[in-house]
């Protein structure tokens, strides 16, 4: 094992430790770390996709598998590493210029980044528990960085849910150890059999992970936490952190516990997903707060991911994994599309809050009229979020549609297709007023000589604050043209 994989985990953890202790130097430490991480990710990708190294199992400490902790790198883990890295870098670039970024942010998220990388690589149940706890604590702290009223309560709620979810996960791990006496996922896949304890353990773990992902009936914490966190934190939490627990469900469901999946659980997940889409969209439509709108939209978008999970878990679904192309990997693009878009949207919301010092949707609208780039980011982002064709989300959705039809679950077409319309509807609340004549320069204060002063517009912000969200959102469109490139070059 060359140095890249440990480096991807160790560098942010060490740098994060230093950044947390020496806060004044935090942003410079972060800059250096970010560059280093970028180089390592590029090298990893070149090696993995060019030469074909790296893929597969790595055991740590020089011991054999059931005794040692194992890491496992495949296409999915690799793509997730890239996604986490690139989105983190983008959001950190934004935070660099955001005047309200706290000193604490750098060290905290570097730790979160390291935790996520460790989680993505890990192939050991208990090790995953440790990483998920680290990530959870960091995420809660990020929410609590906000000085906004109610942020502490939101963070507290998040912490309680997150910890409870972890405890469920831990209980599941205990039961699995009791039954099989091993913790490594690869080994478990060989020995897992149908019995009550295994089913119970898997259900309990799934329940915990669903709570951490904010799946429908357990979603209550998310709009509060993501809505009240500081801008960069909201973006990171919505884009990346909830994906970690989703990734685990995916990993476990098609890995060690693939034999346990049945149609009941698939149906249940699909129902949860459908409810999430409808309920999340409805609340996004009703809320008067900008960031809560975007956060509720995350709840709705998780619905798609759950439907994807339902399809993966359906024993009927034939996963036609050819040598070149595993179609279920298209679900990753749904994750990526949501991560990139949602990060962009939260950052735009942050811009608007910076400009107006208000969290109310109605106060933001006037700025939009005078801010074309912001408006474009929102517009492209809304369409991308709706998953219309030619965006990355559509690639993932297309797989959902094809699979649900192939499974005979025609009713899933309703949430899948209507969800996009709902998205446009609630995002339209932001977009439409930008065209309203009456709002133009409404906020312009009069100067002493009676002439209107300059309107509040995006021009008052540093350009990176505008560029980062725009690039994030634009990448969803550009990537949509090359969805197969990384691993499908032979296709």
């Amino acid at each position, binding site marked *: 094992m060359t140095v890249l994989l440990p480096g991807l985990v160790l560098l942010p953890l060490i740098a994060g430790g230093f950044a947390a202790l020496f806060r004044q130097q935090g942003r410079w430490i972060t800059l250096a770390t970010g560059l280093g991480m970028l180089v390592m990710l590029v090298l990893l990708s070149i090696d993995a996709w060019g030469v074909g190294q790296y893929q597969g199992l790595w055991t740590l400490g020089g011991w054999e598998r059931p005794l040692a902790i194992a890491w496992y790198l495949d296409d999915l883990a690799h793509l997730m590493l890239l996604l986490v890295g690139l989105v983190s870098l983008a959001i950190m670039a934004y935070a660099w210029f955001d005047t309200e970024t706290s000193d604490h942010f750098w060290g905290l998220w570097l730790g979160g980044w390291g935790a996520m990388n460790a989680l993505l690589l890990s192939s050991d149940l208990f090790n995953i528990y440790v990483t998920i706890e680290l990530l959870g604590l960091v995420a809660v702290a990020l929410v609590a960085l906000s000085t906004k009223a109610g942020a502490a309560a939101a963070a507290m709620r998040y912490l309680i849910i997150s910890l409870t979810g972890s405890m469920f996960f831990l209980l599941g791990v205990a039961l699995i150890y009791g039954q099989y006496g091993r913790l490594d996922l690869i080994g478990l896949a060989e020995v897992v059999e149908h019995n009550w304890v295994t089913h119970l353990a898997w259900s309990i773990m799934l329940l915990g992970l669903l709570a951490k992902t904010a799946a429908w009936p357990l979603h209550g914490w998310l709009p*509060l936490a993501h809505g009240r966190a500081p801008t960069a934190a909201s973006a990171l939490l919505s884009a990346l952190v909830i994906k970690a627990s989703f990734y685990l469900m995916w990993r476990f469901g098609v890995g060690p516990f693939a034999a346990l999946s049945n149609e009941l659980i698939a149906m249940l997940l699909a129902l949860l997903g459908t409810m999430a889409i409808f309920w999340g969209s409805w609340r996004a439509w009703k809320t008067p707060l900008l960031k809560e709108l975007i956060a509720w939209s995350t709840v709705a978008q998780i619905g798609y991911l759950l439907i994807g999970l339902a399809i993966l878990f359906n024993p009927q679904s034939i996963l036609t994994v050819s040598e070149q192309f595993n179609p279920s990997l298209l679900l990753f693009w749904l994750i990526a599309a949501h991560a990139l878009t949602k990060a962009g949207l939260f950052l735009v919301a942050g811009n608007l809050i910076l400009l107006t010092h208000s969290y109310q949707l109605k106060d933001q609208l006037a700025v939009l009229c005078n801010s074309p780039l912001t408006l474009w980011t929102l517009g492209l982002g809304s369409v991308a979020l709706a998953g219309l064709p030619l965006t990355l989300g559509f690639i993932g959705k297309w797989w959902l549609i094809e699979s649900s039809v192939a499974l005979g679950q025609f009713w899933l077409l309703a949430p899948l297709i209507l969800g996009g319309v709902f998205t446009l509807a609630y995002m339209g609340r932001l977009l439409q007023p930008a065209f309203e004549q009456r709002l133009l320069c409404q906020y312009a204060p009069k100067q002493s000589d009676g002439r209107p002063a300059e309107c509040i517009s995006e021009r008052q912000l540093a350009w990176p604050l505008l560029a980062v969200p725009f690039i994030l959102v634009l990448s969803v469109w550009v990537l949509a043209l090359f969805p197969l490139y990384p691993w499908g070059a032979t296709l």
Partner: protein
Amino acid sequence: MNEIAIYLITGSVLFCLGLWGVVMREHLLHKILGVNIMGSAAFMLFLAFAARAEPADAVPHALVLTGIVVAISAMALALALMKRVAKESEQHQATLEDSQ
């Protein structure tokens, strides 16, 4: 019925009790203690499984040691957060009601 069976059942009961505390009790201290009791219950299962072997399986012991430290870290953060919630809430009451 040996001691392992007893502690398996006790662990399960404790886990559900802790969950009850998290869900049913309003005060954050109760919720935090509930989470910790859930964790201890999971540790109990781990150690009960470990005690089946002769000598006792060392891996769960190590896992639980790690788990205890994780639990105290989480508890410390939770308590600090609870104090802030209490300070920010109007009646100095550490519950989540005002965040609805």
